[in-house]
């Protein structure tokens, strides 16, 4: 692969080294998910990571996928464990105080995943009063359905465990970003379905170390190029689009600070 022309700063350093470490989730089907036994994870975040690495002239051999969980994304960026984070990483003001976030490259919102047998009973968050609703412990999604919609919160350690509890009928809804839920629905389309309109806005960004000079400009150019040449839409169709959703319009990037 050939690196794009005119690279400078931190992007140039990575391109010259020919290696990049990207922090991703491995338990979110459609976004970032590692099949048991597979070498590399797969999903929308992974493909976006490949697009960015490709612009640096780095192919699969030079990419190291590092598993991240929600709590360690900022520390991993700050201490150099990873160069970039693409891990369903919502852009927030608080996070932008400690790390850089370029994007958004995808916009989603909190939705509900339910069993098909309760379709009609649960159509949106208003129907959640006293309904056992599962999400990851300490997540904003779980706090929102508890505090604003009176759901009976059920915390588990991972989304997969929540989906398992949904499938065995112990909880009646799982909630988090729609993109993540669509991935699970796509894995088991006969039993699970995502319902209702998003009731929050999450904007996924690419995390980078604040000290990485010129990184934001490089990332924004790369993302914009992928929007313009259609590779973003292709990537979406091949990953999240598998669960019967139309490819959305491309988001508008935030200007670099």
């Amino acid at each position: 692969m050939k690196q794009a022309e005119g690279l400078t700063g931190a992007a140039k350093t990575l391109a010259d080294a020919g290696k990049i470490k990207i922090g991703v989730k491995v338990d979110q089907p459609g976004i970032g998910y590692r099949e048991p036994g597979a070498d590399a994870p797969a999903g929308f975040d992974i493909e976006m990571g490949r697009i960015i690495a490709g612009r640096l002239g780095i192919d699969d051999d030079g990419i190291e996928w590092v598993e991240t969980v929600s709590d360690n994304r900022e520390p991993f960026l700050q201490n150099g464990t990873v160069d970039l984070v693409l891990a369903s990483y919502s852009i927030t003001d608080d996070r932008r105080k400690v790390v850089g976030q370029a994007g958004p490259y995808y916009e989603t919102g909190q939705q509900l995943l339910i069993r098909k047998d309760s379709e009609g009973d649960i159509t949106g968050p208003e129907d959640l009063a006293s309904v056992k609703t599962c999400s990851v412990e300490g997540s904003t999604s779980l706090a929102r359905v508890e505090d604003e919609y009176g759901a009976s919160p059920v915390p588990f350690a991972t989304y997969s465990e929540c989906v398992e509890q949904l499938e065995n009928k112990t909880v009646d809804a799982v909630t988090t970003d729609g993109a993540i839920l669509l991935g699970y629905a796509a894995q088991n389309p006969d039993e699970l379905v995502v319902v209702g309109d998003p009731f929050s806005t999450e904007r996924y960004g690419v995390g980078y170390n604040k000290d990485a000079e010129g990184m934001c400009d490089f990332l924004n150019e790369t993302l914009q190029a992928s929007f313009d040449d259609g590779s973003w839409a292709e990537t979406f169709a091949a990953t999240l689009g598998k669960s019967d959703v139309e490819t959305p319009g491309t988001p508008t990037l935030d200007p670099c600070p």
Partner: protein
Amino acid sequence: MTAFSENWHQILLGFGVTIEMVVVAGVLALVVGSLMAALRVSPIAIGRVIGSAYVRLVRNTPLLLIMLIFAFGLPELDIRPEVSLGSARLLSFNVFFIFATTALGLYTAAFVCEALRSGINAIPLGQAEAARSVGMTFGQTLREVILPQAFRAVIPPIASALIAMTKNTSVALGVGVTEATFVMKKLNNDYPTQLIAIFVGFALGYMVLVALISLVAGRLERKLRIA
């Protein structure tokens, strides 16, 4: 400390659930632990086998794993118990509370059993022989002679087991229970700038609970000393 002042209601609710877990799991652990200890010292071979198998199996398995077996195994068998004594949140015990608390109680029972057994073994054999020689049955010997003396010796180790259990309630966060640590994680997410204060505050909460158990144990110890 806005994290505390704005959320005291939720914090109390969280510790309320934790205290409920401690009480229910504690009673279960004492009952099952005593039964298993009686089996382990019984004259019937099969009883000893059952008692020691229980201790080995349960004590050698990580607590989280036992909780996960309950939370993911029993629903597969269509077992989903719920108990509701009223409409208030603290009066309704959902399936996750029941699973986690039962798992915690059964786990702690193994430690209670071993503490009791060490107390029983500390009583000189001659006392049991003397009791049997005056015609007492095994049950009577245990009830009238051995256990009253054994209980005195085992209060400190049983208090330790119950204190460990109190802190172990926090493991239930990972299997759907909204106890104190659940509320703590929620506040951590909402107040990222007050992390340390939140950690310290919740640690203090647990320390108060444990201090209460120590206090009761100390009282009991003094009371039984003269007996």
